[in-house]
């Protein structure tokens, strides 16, 4: 099944013209027990054709254990965006970023390629004070128009601070994880598996929850 029609392809080509540096998309899959791995793979193959700056690398979660660990990948399909030096940027997509989520995926690629927009000064200042590890999970569904906004914010925060990592989690694909975190409305944001909120909230709300993780003894 082709996911990119002519119109979308043309739009993507135009958008990716803004990319400053190359971006490598690292895709982790598994031979068995992965319903959406094939679809994700063919989707990414179609996508990288829209720009010379995009590259796709395939990894197997079991066979490439060391690389998976380096990027902290533990589910499939998972997508990690790497910069032009193929360095980990602490942003991930667990599950296929199709449907509405294509928007956060495209934005993530642009950010990693150096074509992002700066954070508001006040937020950047608060973020620079974060020195203990922060993990942000953003649970989404593909039909949710508010979800890409939350994913983009989480990813942006991760890109701007080496102690922060952020991951999109497609709630239907990762049903058990959604159950574990009581996800019944999306976007749902969970920080360090402990603090949470629902909705595409402002960067200030993200920061408030993130700052809570800095007070506790780790």
């Amino acid at each position: 099944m082709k996911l990119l029609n002519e119109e979308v392809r043309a739009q993507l080509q135009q958008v990716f013209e803004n990319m400053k540096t190359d971006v490598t998309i690292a895709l982790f899959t598994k031979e068995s027990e992965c319903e959406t791995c094939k679809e994700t793979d063919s989707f990414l193959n179609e996508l990288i054709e829209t720009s010379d700056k995009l590259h796709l690398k395939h990894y197997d979660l079991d066979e490439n254990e060391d690389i998976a660990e380096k990027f902290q990948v533990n589910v499939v399909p998972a997508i990690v965006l790497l910069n032009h030096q193929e360095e980990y940027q602490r942003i991930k997509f667990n599950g296929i970023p199709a449907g509405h989520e294509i928007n956060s995926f495209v934005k993530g690629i642009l950010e990693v390629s150096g074509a992002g927009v700066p954070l508001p000064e006040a937020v950047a200042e608060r973020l620079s004070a974060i020195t203990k590890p922060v993990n942000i999970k953003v649970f989404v569904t593909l039909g949710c128009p508010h979800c890409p906004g939350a994913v983009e914010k989480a990813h942006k925060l991760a890109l701007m601070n080496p102690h922060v990592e952020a991951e999109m989690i497609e709630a239907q694909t990762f049903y058990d994880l959604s159950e574990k975190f009581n996800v019944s409305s999306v976007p749902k944001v969970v920080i360090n598996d402990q603090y949470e909120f629902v909705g595409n909230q402002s960067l200030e709300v993200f920061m408030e929850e993130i700052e809570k993780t800095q007070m506790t003894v780790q």
Partner: protein
Amino acid sequence: MDLQLDIGLMNHTKDNSSSQILPDYVDVAIIGAGPAGLSAGIYAQRKGLKTIVIGNSTGGQVNDTSTVENYPGFSSLSGESLAHKFYDHAISLDIPVIKETKVVDINVQNKVKLVKMDNGNSIRAKAIIIATGSNHRILGVKGEDRLAGRGVAYCAICDGPLFQGREVIVAGGGNAAVEAAIDLSKIAKKVSIVHRSIFRADQILIDHMKKLQNIDVYLKTQILEVLGENRVTGVRVKSKNTKVEQIIQAEGVFVEVGYTPNSSLVRDIVEINGRGEIKIDSKMQTSVPGIFAAGDVVEGPYKQIVIAAGDGAKAALSANEYINHLSNEEELNNEIA
């Protein structure tokens, strides 16, 4: 899982808010970037007014609608596509649209009004159009607040997929409720639609819904309580006819009981009716000269996309007339300078 790409990209391809320096003053500042606000923007800009649109949700509630089938010219398209079309149209006219920005205060003491935003910026305007729309109304019953995000949901297209193979309840009887029930019937095992009165949705939607096997309809039935400890387990309802109470079991409750106007910004500035809607005259002017209002936030029945867009046009034309007739231009220009 529907993988169909729903590409917005409006943040990337065309965006003239970040590249432009915020003007110091405008003829008309439009607060809200839904159908009413963007339509007002298009009309104002085409009249030659110096226009700005400030909104925290581009497209507004249209984004939450899976399919729009009653906007003339488009027999069927997704809510978000329609929102993009409105936005693209506005952008094609070079209207600055300040996105993801809330207006926190407006000062109308002088003829030249001051609009303050949450990013610390402010802008002066000869006229203001309030098009801040509305938000989901809550049921207002016991258990709803406690179980929000734990089975109580307000966006069927967002949260529907999380209830695959489960039983859900839709509360409400308007178009949004019936559409939600139809959408959810494709995912859930069973959908019970519960409404305190009779349906007020379009007949075409009701007919469609009645053909679906897995939808139960409870009319003239009041929801008294949402049940569940940590997650929703059902609702307690009471039939208005028989006065009998019963429990309908479900793991999700989708609340689609209408909207509540976002009028708090101007609550103490312009006249508001008992439902919280802004009072307007036939030309969309509020009780304060130079402040106009349009869309879901104004008084009147039938909250519809096409009506909001029409309101926006009226408000912009009316603002144009107001600006042209401002009595003492010289004094005004002094204020601006």
